[in-house]
């Protein structure tokens, strides 16, 4: 353990683990209920499209599947050293696609109508997206990252984890939002060619704005949850607030009536790329330092050290081992070593992280 982690807990009564388990279960059950409610709400909202435009609705969903699959693979792959848990990654996407999207639908409708009533329809038409979405959607998406940090403490240990889970939550949101925009484009084009309306919307939202949409904003917001998880509320609150404000600012820029959309996408992509590269550089440097210390202490064999911190080298090392007990032994050693290294490297004040 390093200074970046809270002090080791004092001995606790035997009942404490039970309580922790109960609390984790409460978080998990709540998250599942919210996802189910979100799914029901979205189904209710878009059922008429399924009835009136069944083929176009199926097409709208199908056109987003490549984004979902490629995005899921890429974003998990973006985590240095090893990919995050597949199950929790799927949970993050599910949260973004159901609970966050459904709640955002209601929240945005409420705030947009309030703006129309109080500031006038012209103002609301111009600014409601830029004012409602950053506030509502960023909070609702990042709520999913917080729930994962609560339900699976080992999943989010630092800013890198928070960023990856945030991006996955944003990906789920982005995919479902793309479907809803595609469907909404049917009446906006007079329902004269539903398939074309859906396809055009999907192309724009995947090929053009997809480069730096919800996944990018939520990645930045999720980074803050990582800081919170690593440093605790007292030391993590400020960086978490900065990350959330940054994500909201990115979203505001994205939805503002100016500048042109290509420039907005580039700005947001540049922001998330810089944050990612800084975090990645710091994380890898810390992991290298921890590994070097372990080699020096003799807890990791020097001959295995060069293979530990990259996926490809670990795989090659495994292939060199004889199939069976030896390979299983190497694999178990690799996983245990990486687990230890990642725990210590999660968040330290080195590099630009």
């Amino acid at each position, binding site marked *: 353990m390093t200074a970046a982690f809270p002090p080791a807990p004092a001995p606790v009564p035997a009942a404490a683990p039970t309580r922790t388990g109960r609390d984790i279960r*409460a978080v998990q059950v709540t998250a599942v209920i919210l996802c189910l409610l979100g799914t029901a709400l979205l189904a209710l909202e878009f059922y008429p499209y399924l009835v*009136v435009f069944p083929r176009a609705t199926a097409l709208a969903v199908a056109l987003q599947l490549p984004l979902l699959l490629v995005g899921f693979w890429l974003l998990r792959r973006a985590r240095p050293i090893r990919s995050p848990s597949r199950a929790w990654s799927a949970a993050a996407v599910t949260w973004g696609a159901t609970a966050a999207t459904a709640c955002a639908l*209601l929240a945005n*409708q*409420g705030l947009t109508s309030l703006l129309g*009533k109080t500031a006038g*329809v*012209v103002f609301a038409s111009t600014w409601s997206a830029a004012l409602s979405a950053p506030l509502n959607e960023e909070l609702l998406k990042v*709520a999913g990252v917080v729930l994962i940090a609560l339900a699976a403490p080992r999943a989010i240990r630092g800013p890198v984890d928070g960023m990856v889970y945030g991006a996955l939550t944003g990906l789920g949101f982005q995919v479902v939002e793309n479907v809803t925009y595609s469907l909404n484009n049917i009446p906006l084009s007079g329902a004269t060619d539903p398939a074309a309306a859906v396809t055009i919307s999907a192309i724009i939202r995947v090929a053009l704005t997809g480069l730096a949409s919800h996944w990018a904003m939520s990645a930045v917001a999720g980074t803050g949850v990582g800081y919170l998880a690593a440093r*605790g509320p007292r030391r993590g609150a400020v960086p978490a607030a900065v990350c959330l404000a940054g994500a909201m600012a990115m979203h505001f820029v994205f939805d503002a009536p100016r500048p042109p959309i290509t420039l907005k996408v580039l700005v947001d992509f540049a922001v998330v790329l810089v944050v990612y590269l800084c975090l990645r550089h710091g994380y890898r440097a810390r992991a290298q330092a921890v590994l070097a210390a372990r080699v020096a202490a003799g807890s990791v064999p020097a001959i295995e050290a060069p293979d530990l911190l990259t996926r490809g080298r670990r795989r090659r090392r495994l292939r060199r081992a004889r199939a069976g007990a030896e390979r299983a032994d190497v694999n178990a050693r690799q996983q245990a070593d990486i687990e230890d290294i990642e725990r210590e490297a999660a968040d330290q004040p080195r590099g630009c992280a």
Partner: protein
Amino acid sequence: MLARRVGWLIAVVGVMAVLTAGWPLVSRAVSANQPSAAGQVLTIGPGGSDSAQFDPGPGWVINSAISDPLQAWRLARGPVNVTVLYVTLLNPSQAGRLWSGLGNILRLGDPSARLGRPVALAGAPAGAGQTGPVTENGHAGQVAVLPDAAADFAVEVVSAAPAGDSAAARATTALVVRSLRFPARAA
């Protein structure tokens, strides 16, 4: 570590509840009715040559909660509700499908909505419009579709009222159609 899990959980659910239920509740406390001024000309569309203007006449109330000058104006006067929609045509050749398309759009909001047989709109700005009756859930009225000269976009007018007031709804559609101006055509 986020040690106080239940506290954090309550905070997360609380924030979600405030956003999801709070904004709609606050919005409901504010009236959406915004009286339109006499002679007020309403513009619909993104502006310039890709927009249209109309004058609904006096006594109308604009529903400011769901009106958007880019896409739809929703107004009411007594029992009559009128919606003026802006639709972008993906291809000029699709102007001929506007009528059936509008029927499907109305069915999204009300499965019982049905359009009657369309007839050419006499006196339409471009002479290419269509009009016909609409019925939906005990209401009846008149709709009209009017593509602009280049068939880049169209304006659709839907007026409906309880069956006993359908004559007023039909008159409303006629009134709005007569007042419609497509700036690009005037140039």
